[in-house]
C-alpha cells in the first residue's frame, strides 16, 4: 500500500474561518465544485455547503465537479481524475488561547496550472504559513 497525494501542512490563525475560505476559493476556481464530509452519504454542490456540511467538520473533500466526485467514488485515485479533488483536514477546533492552528491540504500535482493557482490562492487567502510542503 502506497499512499497518494501531496500533504501540504499549513499553520493558520485560529481566527480564520478555514472552512469558509476553503469553500470560497475552491468555488471560484471550480464553479461546479462538489463537497462531502467524510461522514456524508453523497457529495453536494459547494453552494449548499452552508446547510449540508457539518459546521464543525474537521475533514472533507472538494471535487472539481459532479463527474469528478463520481469518478472518485467509483475508482478512488485514477489517471482520469488527477487533480480533481482536494482533501481538507482541519483537525479539532483550536482552544481559545491557541495562537496557531495546524491544517493539512492534500492534493495531486501542484505543478499543473489550475491546481497550482488554486493551492496558491488557498495559501494566500488562509493567510497561512507553509510548515511542511512535502509531508
Amino acid at each position, binding site marked *: 500500500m502506497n*499512499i497518494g497525494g*501531496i500533504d501540504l501542512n499549513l499553520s493558520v490563525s485560529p481566527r480564520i474561518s478555514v472552512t469558509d475560505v476553503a469553500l470560497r476559493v475552491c468555488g471560484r476556481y471550480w464553479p461546479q465544485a462538489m463537497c462531502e464530509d467524510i461522514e456524508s452519504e453523497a457529495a453536494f454542490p459547494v453552494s449548499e455547503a452552508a446547510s449540508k456540511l457539518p459546521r464543525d467538520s474537521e475533514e472533507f473533500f472538494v471535487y472539481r465537479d459532479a463527474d469528478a466526485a463520481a469518478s*472518485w467514488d467509483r475508482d478512488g485515485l485514477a489517471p482520469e481524475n488527477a487533480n480533481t479533488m482536494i482533501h481538507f483536514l482541519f483537525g479539532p477546533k483550536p482552544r481559545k488561547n491557541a495562537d496557531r492552528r495546524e491544517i493539512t491540504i492534500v492534493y495531486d500535482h501542484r505543478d499543473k496550472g489550475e491546481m497550482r493557482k488554486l493551492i496558491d490562492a488557498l495559501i494566500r487567502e488562509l493567510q497561512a504559513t507553509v510548515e511542511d510542503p512535502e509531508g
Partner: protein
Amino acid sequence: MSHQHHYTDRVGYNGIVALSPWRFRAGQPPGPHPFGAYFTTLPPGTKKLAKRLQIPRTKIEFAFIFLDQSDLVPLRGRRGPFIFFSPHDYEVDAPRQVYGGRRQP
C-alpha cells in the same frame, strides 16, 4: 491493543502471504512522501477509505490487520493520526497477525 492495517490488491496480497512472517516491502510512494512501507489505523469498514488514503479502489480489495507495537512513524500533518510508515521493510510475525484476506467492510 490497537491495530494497524495494510491494504493492497490481489498481487500484493499473494506476495505478502507467501512469506512467514508477513513482510511489507518499503518503497517510494508517488509524490514526495518518505520512502517506506505504509499502514493505516483506519479499519476495513471506514467510509471513503480509498479517498482518505488517495489510492485506487483496487488497492483496498485485500487487507492485512495486525497488532500495533508503536514502532511505526506517523506521517507529518493531519493525516498522521491515521497514516503511519516504516522507513524500511516491515515484518509481522504470527503472534501479531490478526487477519489477512479479502477486505470485509
